[in-house]
């Protein structure tokens, strides 16, 4: 594909002459659409326009410099040679350096594409496209309108280089700002999650305290009935105690105490919030965390995103089920050095095509809802040690996330 570009450009040059820049741009747009199917249109536009424009500007500035040194006559003589060698090479080197500067920003924008406003990229794109049109349109104006050298041409190239440099700086600042915003938001969420967890635990504790208070009274009344030596009275008292006090301690809500084994705080927060949320929707949650879970080899922010999506999906699907339930199991396989998170839920009778649920626009809930699992897929791509197993059987949907301790290489 890369080889076809010069060929296409050459044909384009013959056909379009000064408007040849349209060719590489459309070429990049098409290639971008094919290769980076997940990217937004804005992103692809940015790639295409940026590549074409920055290449052209640097190549042209090199040409201008050479022209300045060797004079017009010699330049015209060697124009094709220069256009083929020095200018492209210079342009490529400049672009490689620039690329190094903007790569972190672009990588960030790609990774968190749903977290930022597309507007600012649109602004950059329009600006670049305008510059591009001016730059290339210049030749056309010179040739057909002014029929002489354009007086502002010399300054234009300096302005364009300035534009590119400013753009790079702006992009860096903007992404840094976005990143800060994102982290702040995550921190806020985390704090909110943990606060609700603490509240729940406090409620449990005060329940326990009141039980402890009653406990003494209970013992006294039991003692009294034993003293009567009447078995039926004793039985009666015992049954009454079980009825009034015993049940409280078997309440499902004490399951939250099991989160104690989950030592990664942000994840603890995510789980407690979701479990409480499920309870509020009258979905029973069965929780098993028998092993101490800590130091999972995965970046916390990615971890938070994956688990929240899985839990959100599970709760949402269980809501529609005839017999709703959600099961969460965290376990550690010491021998295999692996942590397994199983999240399963009942769902409505509609059959699910598990091959398709990871597609970007697919969702059982209608349009624009299918981002969750596709996002998980994107995150998983960055890790070699994560595997995800998805099962659907007899109305139970199950996701198993396997986190393997990376073997140092």
């Amino acid at each position, binding site marked *: 594909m890369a080889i076809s570009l010069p060929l296409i450009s050459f044909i384009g040059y013959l056909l379009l002459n000064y408007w040849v820049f349209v060719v590489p741009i459309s070429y990049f747009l098409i290639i971008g659409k094919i290769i980076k199917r997940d990217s937004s249109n804005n992103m692809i536009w940015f790639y295409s326009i940026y590549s074409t424009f920055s290449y052209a500007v640097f190549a042209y500035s090199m040409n201008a410099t050479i022209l300045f040194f060797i004079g017009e006559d010699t330049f015209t003589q060697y124009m094709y040679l220069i256009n083929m060698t020095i200018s492209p090479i210079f342009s490529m080197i400049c672009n490689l350096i620039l690329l190094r500067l903007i790569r972190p920003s672009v990588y960030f924008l790609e990774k968190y594409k749903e977290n930022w406003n597309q507007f600012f990229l649109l602004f950059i794109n329009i600006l670049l496209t305008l510059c591009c049109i001016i730059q290339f349109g210049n030749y056309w104006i010179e040739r057909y309108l002014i029929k002489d050298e354009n007086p502002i041409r010399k300054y234009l190239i300096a302005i364009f280089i300035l534009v590119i440099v400013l753009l790079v700086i702006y992009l860096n600042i903007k992404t840094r700002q976005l990143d800060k915003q994102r982290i702040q938001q995550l921190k806020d969420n985390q704090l909110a999650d943990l606060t609700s967890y603490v509240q729940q635990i406090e409620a449990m504790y005060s329940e326990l305290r009141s039980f402890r208070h009653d406990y003494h009274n209970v013992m006294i009344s039991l003692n009294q009935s034993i003293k009567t030596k009447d078995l039926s009275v004793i039985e009666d008292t015992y049954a009454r105690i079980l009825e009034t006090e015993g049940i409280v301690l*078997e309440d499902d809500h*004490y399951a939250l105490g099991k989160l104690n084994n989950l030592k990664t705080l942000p994840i603890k927060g995510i789980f407690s919030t979701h479990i409480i949320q499920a309870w509020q929707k009258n979905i029973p949650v069965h929780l*098993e965390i*028998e*092993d101490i879970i800590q130091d999972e080899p995965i970046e916390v922010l990615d971890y938070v995103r994956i688990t929240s999506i899985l839990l959100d999906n599970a709760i949402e699907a269980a809501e529609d089920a005839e017999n709703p339930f959600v*099961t969460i*199991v965290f*376990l550690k*396989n010491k021998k*295999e050095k*692996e942590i*397994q998170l*199983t999240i399963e839920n009942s769902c409505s009778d509609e059959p699910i*095509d*598990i*091959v398709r649920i*990871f597609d970007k626009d697919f969702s059982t809930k209608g349009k624009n809802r299918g981002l969750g699992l596709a996002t998980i*897929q994107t995150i*998983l*791509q960055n890790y*070699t*040690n*994560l*595997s*995800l*197993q*998805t*099962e*659907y*059987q007899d109305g139970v949907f199950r996701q*198993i996330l*396997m986190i*393997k301790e990376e*073997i140092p290489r």
Partner: protein
Amino acid sequence: MNIFLLEDDIMHQQRLELVIREILLEKRWPAKSIVTTARPETLLKKVQETVDQNIYFLDIEINGEKKKGLEIASQIRTMDPYGVIVFITTHSEFAPITYAYKVSAFDFIAKDSPIDTIKQHLVDCFENLLNNRASEKKEETFFFSNQHSNFQVPFSDILYFETTEISHKLRLICKSRLVNFYATLGEIESLDERFFKVHRSFVVNLENIAQIDRSEGVVYFDQNHSCLISRRKIRPALEKMNAINQIFQKK
């Protein structure tokens, strides 16, 4: 059938043993021995002596040690991979999925549930043990393990493996499940003779192929699942399928 009961509370121990004996009598199931003890060491010693259709009822917290039962269970598993392990415990210790994964525990029975419920659970456990024996043929499981991931699925469930947009990330497509993991197709193909690379991005399980469409170049597994096959692989695939079918008929 050998029955093992580990419980440190004498009251519970006696009560359970009584229920078990009752069931055996009612159903006329013969038991070679019933070992009831509060000491893990005694139990393990007895298990060493006899591994023959054993069923174990274990408490989890023994003499104040919170996870002793699980520890004992995994030691039992090294000696007796097929015995039925049942945990009899308090409700707050319930973790059936975890223990099923770790020591293939069959059931959890709550100590504090009514005696009829306990009895019903026990009957189920015994029936599982006895039926298990009758149909010893276990379903073949495909274990995958490399430095990045490990998982297991029933072999007969496997349809095909495919590559994803990310190099070395593979996706296994089964009848009712999907596994995303890190490996190469070549690695997969060499794991079993029934795996065959039919296309540069697909390895299929030859056993589950329903039909190969020569003109379209598509392999069909069932109504919902299909993958591509390159033309020059059609003939070797058919030959391999025949060879495998013959092996299985001989068996």
